[in-house]
C-alpha cells in the first residue's frame, strides 16, 4: 500500500518548494507519493518540469484558492 505525505512549503519562494520536495523524496519508498503545498505559482509550474526531467511521476496539480497542490510519485 503506497503512502502519501504532505510537504507544506506555503509562503516560501522558488526554489524552496522544489528543494523541500527533493529532500522529502529521498526519505520515502518507490511508489509512495508526496503532496507539495505551494503558494508560489512559479514553483507549481516548475516542479512538474523537474519531475519529468529526472524520471519521477506527476500524479496531478490542482489549485485551491492561492495554494497549489502538486502530487508526485517516486518512480525510482
Amino acid at each position, binding site marked *: 500500500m503506497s503512502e502519501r505525505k504532505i510537504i507544506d512549503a506555503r*509562503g*516560501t*519562494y*522558488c*526554489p*524552496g518548494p*522544489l*528543494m523541500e520536495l*527533493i*529532500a522529502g523524496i*529521498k526519505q520515502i519508498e518507490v511508489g509512495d507519493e508526496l503532496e507539495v503545498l505551494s503558494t508560489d505559482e512559479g514553483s507549481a509550474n516548475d516542479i512538474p518540469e*523537474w519531475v519529468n*526531467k*529526472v524520471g519521477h511521476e506527476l500524479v496531478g496539480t490542482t489549485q485551491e484558492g492561492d495554494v497549489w497542490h502538486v502530487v508526485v510519485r517516486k518512480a525510482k
Partner: protein
Amino acid sequence: MSKVSIIITSGSREKLQFAAMMASVAAVSAYEVTVFLSMNAMPYFANTHEGGAPTEGELGRLMEEKNVPDFMELFEQAVELGDAKIYPCSMAMDVMGIHKDDVKPFLAEPLGLTKFMSMAEGGQCWSF
C-alpha cells in the same frame, strides 16, 4: 552527465541568490555542478562571516522582506541533495589569509583557476 559550471565573484545579495538557485536546481536535476568562489563572493563562505549580503536594488530589498530561501542554505542543499562541488578559490583564500579549516564545512578543497577551467571544459559556464 551534462556539466554546469558557475563562477561567483560578486558579493551582492541578488547575484549570490541567483547563483545559489542555479547551483541547487541544476544539482538536483541531473547536472554535474561545479561552483568556483572568488573575489567578493569569498568572504561569505568564511566561518567568521556574520550577517547577510548587501542588496543592489529593489528585488534584493524585496527578498529581505519575504520568505526567500537563504542563499547559503541553497548552496549547502546543492551539495547535500545534488552532490554539487563548491570550490573556494585558492588565490582568494591566500589574499584573505585563511585556510581550508576556516571556511564552511560543505565546501570542497581549495582550487586554482587552471584546474577549474579544465573541469569546466565542454559544459555550460555561468558567471555571477
